[in-house]
């Protein structure tokens, strides 16, 4: 009766708390050979907000690069069919500590072309080296702005034309905004996460590779719309699907 119902609730609640607290310490043993993937599409529901055109007359070099093809803000980039580009997807729950800390060997590249960042959002793992390059014949400075109390320390380096790439890495997960002080319209992101990740393309499609079988929570992050999560279960060697829809404001 009342007694039993309360005991049941307490048990469920205690389990939830334990799962929530202990998820990071439960270890999964996974075999690499049976790795699957998580794939899906991220869409925007509703009318995409208008992305303002960028006026670059302060720097004739930038202006010239966009003489026939004006640049626009890239906070919300929606492709044909409503797909949201530049959304970062990563696994926020369910991976073991060793899986979380594995660092891929590839070096993601952040370029400055036509006085815009390419790609607009660069995803990477904690500790993974990345490169910042410049393809522009005008000087930039590369100035990421993490919150120093997270453990990621801001820095600010110049990149004049022809400069060598800047090679760096980050210490903790954080969505770090990047700007150029010389060109105030330039805005980009370093999405620092742990574990496998992927970024949506112009159709809003993504695939997270190298996911061991198991149950996970996938998080999608978009700079304007924030985060959404979904639970998926990945079977050995198979692809699980997680689609997301963000609502336009």
């Amino acid at each position: 009766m009342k007694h039993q119902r309360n005991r049941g609730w307490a048990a469920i609640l205690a389990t939830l708390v334990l799962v929530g607290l202990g998820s990071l310490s439960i270890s999964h043993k996974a075999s690499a050979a049976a790795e699957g993937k998580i794939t899906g599409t991220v869409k925007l529901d509703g009318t995409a907000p208008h992305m303002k055109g960028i006026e670059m007359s302060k720097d004739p070099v930038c202006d010239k690069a966009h003489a026939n093809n004006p640049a626009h803000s890239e906070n919300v980039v929606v492709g044909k069919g409503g797909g949201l580009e530049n959304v970062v997807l990563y696994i926020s729950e369910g991976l073991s500590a060793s899986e979380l800390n594995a660092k891929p060997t590839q070096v993601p590249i952040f370029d400055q072309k036509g006085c815009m960042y390419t790609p607009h959002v660069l995803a990477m793992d904690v500790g993974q080296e990345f490169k910042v390059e410049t393809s522009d014949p005008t000087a930039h400075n590369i100035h990421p702005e993490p919150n120093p109390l997270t453990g990621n320390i801001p820095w600010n380096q110049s990149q004049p034309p022809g400069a060598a790439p800047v090679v760096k890495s980050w210490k903790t997960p954080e969505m770090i905004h990047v700007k150029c002080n010389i060109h105030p319209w330039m805005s980009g992101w370093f999405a620092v996460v742990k574990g496998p990740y992927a970024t949506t393309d112009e159709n809003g499609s993504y695939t997270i590779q190298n996911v061991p079988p198991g149950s996970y929570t996938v998080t999608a992050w978009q700079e304007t719309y924030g985060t959404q999560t979904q639970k998926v279960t990945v079977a050995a060697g198979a692809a699980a699907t997680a689609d997301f829809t963000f609502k336009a404001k």
Partner: protein
Amino acid sequence: MHRNLLKWSLLLSAVVALCLSAASYAQLTTYQQQEWLHSPAASSHIGNITGAAPAAAMPYRRYCVGCHGPLGDGNGENAQWINPKPRDFQLAIFKCRSTPTGTLPTDQDLYDSIGRGLDRSNMPSWDALTKQERADLVAWIKHFSPRWQNEKAGTPIQIPAEPEITPDRVKTGQEVFRKMECWKCHGVQGMANGPSSSTLTDDLGRPISPFNFTDGSRPLCGSTDQDIYKIFMTGLDGTPMPSFADNIKPEEAWDLVFYLRSLQPHNAYNAKEREIANQLGLKPVNPNAPAQ
């Protein structure tokens, strides 16, 4: 009893959820700072003087708290009327360093900033305080932020000996000024009127002006040639001024220092550079000239 267990479980899980989400952006509390007050990191070594943070509690309250605030976050009662804003010691991002961008300054850097003050700001020169008091205040500054517990200060950059000032060097310095595009912010005459100067903001989004070489102001982090060298070779962290350490060779850096001196009005440091600039008939750089 089970009803209570239910209530407490709900409360606990709510608390846990809040903690997990808020962990990285919590405002530091005096409780946390009290723990660091007696840590080894909250001490300083400047020359043969050792500073200890607890000894600086009263001097900080007497001299500093009105601007920097009791939590050291730059929110003293007067901060709202001051521009530039007082430094937030919790973030531990400092402009005047001898260490590379993104690293902590040395004790000597902080000690020098306290003693020298920052020109054109409300940070006075505190050289009326004894060396011991200033050393203790450096240690006190270090108890405000977790960064001093977790990171070591950066390694000071190597500054080669200052060469003789020659016309060739001043000319090379101007070429560096043009190539690095310093004029984008500082203007071709150094008057802080470059094309990007009006849209500059600091790390907290507040408008900020570049240094004006021509109005007689003293450079922010000291008046000597070495101090100017350090500014562009380490960057002023927290501001738009980047580090050029990866793009300017140390020899060329001295050339740039000499050229920058020639932009300043006559002062105690730049007689030779101004004379040379005059003799050479140096004109401001032409930003529209094709890149070499």
